[in-house]
């Protein structure tokens, strides 16, 4: 399950970023960004999940260890979870996981958690742009990609 490199001919690195978006807020936010025709980099691959708490830490660890350049988890704002409390668990997990990943040598920018509501199409586009910029600056997750 090696991840193919996405560098374009040596000039300019295009990172591969995995994005989990919750069905009720963030995915709708992504939709809004789309129908509003907001421009954003095409580096994020979005996976729709029913709740941000559906994203097991294992997903993040596996993606990063296998060489993806970044992982972003998007959920509803605290208090707005469709399932009342899912994103509160995401929040605790995110805090903990980020520290652990940093400890074993994964740059903190490679794993991010953000809150994007259904009405925040612009915030979605901004998040995509910001994360892409940060990960691009870090360069490829090459030591891990080469470890395949």
């Amino acid at each position, binding site marked *: *399950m090696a991840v193919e490199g996405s560098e374009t001919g040596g000039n300019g690195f295009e990172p591969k970023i995995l994005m989990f978006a919750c069905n009720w807020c963030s995915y709708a936010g992504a939709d809004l960004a789309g129908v509003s025709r907001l421009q954003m980099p095409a580096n994020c691959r979005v996976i729709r999940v029913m709740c941000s708490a559906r994203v097991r*830490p*294992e997903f993040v*660890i*596996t993606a990063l*260890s*296998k*060489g993806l350049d970044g992982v972003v988890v998007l959920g509803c704002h*605290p*208090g707005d979870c469709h399932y009342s*409390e899912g994103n*509160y*668990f995401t*929040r*605790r*997990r*995110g*805090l*903990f*996981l*980020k*520290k*652990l*990943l*940093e*400890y*074993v*040598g*994964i*740059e*903190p920018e490679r794993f*991010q*958690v*953000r*809150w994007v509501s259904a009405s925040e199409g612009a915030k979605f586009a901004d998040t995509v742009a910001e994360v892409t910029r940060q990960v691009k600056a870090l360069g490829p997750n090459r*030591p*891990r990609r080469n*470890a*395949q």
Partner: protein
Amino acid sequence: MQDRLHDIVRKLLGEGTIEYFIGYGAGSEPHRVVPCFVTSDHEVERLVWGPLCLQNLSKYVLQAKDLEGKAGVLVKGCDTRAIVELLKQHQIEREEVVVIGVACQGQVDPRTLEEVLGVPMEQVQGVEDAGDQFVVTIGEDERTVAKEQVLLGKCLYCRHPSAFEYDFTLGEIVPFSIDAGESEFAMVEELERLSVEERRAFWQKQFARCIRCNACREVCYACYCKECIFDRKMPRWLDKPPLLSENEIYHLIRAVHLAGRCIDCRECERVCPMNLPLSRLYKKVQKDIAELFDYEAGIELDEVPPLVSFELDDQDPFM
């Protein structure tokens, strides 16, 4: 203490209170102490207690669960935390198990002892506790070693030397402490001061040595899942080839699973055939859980584990 242990176990077995006792017994060589399972009166003499009783016997309580009748188990202070966690995680019932607590005065790390004495463990006939030092018998000779020099890493920072959840105790509960000179988390902080690249280099070097023998999982008290995520075929979380990425995934997923449950028994590190510094990983997990959620596993029975609960005003600095 050993005699008192024999008396208690004999009495419990005789009364029929327990069917099965899990303790320590002499191994194939004088310096080896192995888990020992006693079911009848005449086997009681096999039980020993001393500074080489390293194992965390709580793991075996889970296996005794399916047997008829109750099981008894001998626990040190650190192992008591495993019992508390197993109760908390609803893996055992308090009535099902008779806990014999012991006031531990520190356990010897055989690897360090070899280094300090310059003698292979095979020649060591026995180790006796003598206050703030150990008396080691080598052939005809007796040599004394200061405790700080040869204690297990976890014993240097021991905060629970005596069992605190028990039905019977061996001898008096005696306080024991060693001045280790630095913080419990010093080995984690040392790594935290490095740059991300240096930490990556450090851990990739360690994970690359892992042979994925699963010993750390098998010995872990918390790894009681009927079907482990690493053994699942569908979906398959871990590929078979001995790749660095798979080794890293194995250790990180284990660390996440142990978050809020690791009790710092360091059995994983002790059994690792490749001597991976696993306690440096799990100590980090404990440190984060303590700092972020003010929680320590295996102390309070009715405290809710941090990752299955939340507060409305939890911090989210980066979200």
